[in-house]
């Protein structure tokens, strides 16, 4: 069976759903950031898949994916710096214990 658009988009959706579950259900702040990176990778696969199967001549999906990678790198940097600063002050990175702003 030839691999078509549906295969790639289903793979991207499955990776996104796994990352979504991890970002919502884990307590370790760094694991939450890792699951956010998973979601960004899933979106990239969808972008490149659409670019390849719908408009193969313009590589717009791949260009967009490059910018998503750059933004993900910047966001991972700042997010991990925040986690390190929190650990330095509170000796924990458990997201269910860092709840000062909670109602």
């Amino acid at each position, binding site marked *: *069976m*030839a*691999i078509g*658009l549906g*295969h790639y*988009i*289903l*793979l991207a*959706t*499955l*990776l*996104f759903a*796994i*990352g979504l*579950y991890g970002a*919502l*259900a*884990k*307590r*370790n702040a*760094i*694991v939450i*950031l*890792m*699951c956010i*990176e998973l979601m960004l*990778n899933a979106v*990239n*696969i969808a972008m*490149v*898949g659409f670019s*390849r*199967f*719908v408009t*193969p*001549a*313009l*590589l717009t999906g*791949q*260009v967009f*994916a*490059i*910018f998503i*990678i*750059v*933004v*993900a*790198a*910047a966001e*991972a*940097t*700042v997010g*991990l*710096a925040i986690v*390190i*600063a929190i650990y330095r002050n509170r000796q*924990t*990175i*458990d997201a*269910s214990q860092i709840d000062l702003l909670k109602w």
Partner: protein
Amino acid sequence: MALSIAFWILAIVAIVSALSVVLLRNVFRSALALILCFLSVAGIYVTLQADFLAAVQVLVYVGAISILIILALMLTRNVPQGSPTNTLRIPALLVAVFFFIVVAWALANTPWQLSTTAPVTPTTAVIGEKLFGVSGFILPVEITPILLLAAILGAIVIAREK
């Protein structure tokens, strides 16, 4: 034929390693599983004839972001805790399953205008043309270094010792 085999192997490795990131107790092994997931996503880009993007994925994600994540893990050792789940486990699972079902249903019921022209390879020259050529994406290219500079300065200021 070879493309199908490669796709199935890479897809299964990507999904199993993504599940390992979420389900493993040892947080360092989750990071290693994430590296494996990034590598298999780079392989998927190769099956999509996106060779430049596969190289960028390996260089940036595997080469830099994974190292950064492992560095942060080493600096925040929380040995008895590991990687537990919180109280929102079941609603999160329901949300993820519901999202997957909705998107799969929308995917199956949309008449995609698929094109049968062959993809352009190698992609490096065309991406360079798109980024830097006339009517290209030169504005995002110029804004990106400012974003990266802001991220670097922000990370340094947030994470430095007082």
